[in-house]
């Protein structure tokens, strides 16, 4: 079985964004204590920052999977 080289970050992004959206909804409905509001704000800002950062630092990277004799995969640069 080929070993994963990089843990994927896709689904984590999705979760982070969903959490951010839920925080905004909670804040918009109001009726929260000062402490709770502040806690939600800082969590929301943290989530938005992480998502934005990940979005910005991502790059389009293309490689070709090549199977060797043992059935293990190598990644080679791919030129189209």
């Amino acid at each position, binding site marked *: 079985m080929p070993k994963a*080289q990089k843990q994927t970050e896709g689904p984590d992004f999705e979760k982070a964004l969903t959490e951010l959206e839920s925080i905004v909804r909670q804040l918009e409905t109001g009726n929260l204590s000062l402490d709770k509001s502040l806690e939600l704000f800082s969590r929301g800002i943290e989530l938005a920052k992480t998502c934005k950062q990940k979005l910005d630092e991502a790059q389009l990277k293309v490689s*070709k999977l090549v199977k060797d004799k043992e059935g293990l995969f190598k990644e080679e640069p791919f030129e189209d």
Partner: protein
Amino acid sequence: MPERKVLTVTQVNRLVSGMLHEHFPDIWLEGEVSNFKAYSSGHLYFTLKDQSSQISAVCFRTSAQALRFELKDGMQVVGHGRVELYAPTGRYQVILEYMEPKGKGALQEAFEQLKKRLAEEGLFAEERKKPIPALPGTIAVVTSPSGAVIHDILRTLRLHDARVRVLVYPVAVQGEDAGKQIAGAVQDLNARRDVDVIIVARGGGSLEDLWAFNEEVVARAIAGSRIPVISGVGHETDFTISDFVADVRAATPTAAAQLIAQGREEFQQRLKAGADGLVDAAQEFMFNQEQHLDELIRHRAFDRIRTGLAEQQSRVFRLASRIEGLVRDFRHRTDLRVRTLVERVARSADAQFRTDSSRLATVAAKLDLLSPLASLGRGYAICRKADGSVVTRVAQVTQGEDVSLRVTDGSLECEVTEKKADSKQ
């Protein structure tokens, strides 16, 4: 005896050739391929036969290149062409310009049968479909590494600035082994943990060309994939079994790439909306808190405390100055012994007084912070009606009424010319 008309071999062949041209310029014929030979020139030579006879056949290079299948011995074909005499051998042959395997109908049949069987198994069911992640980190593209398809996909991703990691899994997308390769690729990718979406893709073509994507082994591999699969096979009008079993069918390979790019754009929009919402909520929150604080400060309950404290303060100051005066008197009037004694008393009283006044200063400073005057200093004004009551809502005043705005250093006498309630809330 009539005169003999002797013809040369060439003349006979020419005559026969002319007759063949005249009678068989355009025929369709059907037969089984045998003695198949592909020459390096690109021409194909073979024999077409049925149960009782056979005929030589040629498919020249340009026609051979256009064939959409591999010609093999034993294959039943239907071809279109003309009959010609090959003068050097005196044998006639059929020149075929187009051929199709006679099994084309059978292929269509196989497609319908498999589609029906897999549908009955529930492999195409909507509830089986997995959502495509909005922002995949890595996508794997199972397709031919050469040709337009991978190029189109990458070009589309670049066009939309879709910053995603792309793994190209090279496979044959046509030919006998293609189905096995595609299925194997989907399985291999499922063994990895770094793939978020798989795209299986191929450009347009005939039913035969796309056949690998109609094979059961491919359908089962896609159905068994834990990773969401997008199929982008052929043109808009082409449907394959892979399209039905995949989580999403994209009309073309380019459309599959657009789906990925769109996901990113939507994610960005959602993120922006989320961040904006956060800022709005924060501003709203601060505004409400500030208003709440101002209301508290203005509350009458504080008036009494404020007055009370001011009274205490002046009493302490009065007492302190009296003590000071007495001490001064004593100092002047008494001898050294008494003075020493008095000074000791005075020192301790002084210390006490200092402690008291520093405590007072602290309290006063706090009060100053809480004072509505501080709010006024920040640009707020207290609006009062003629009876002195504070106006906090539009509804409290009527148009034309006189109000007084208290600012830091005085008041402004105003008339309400218009009332505008906030549309919000």
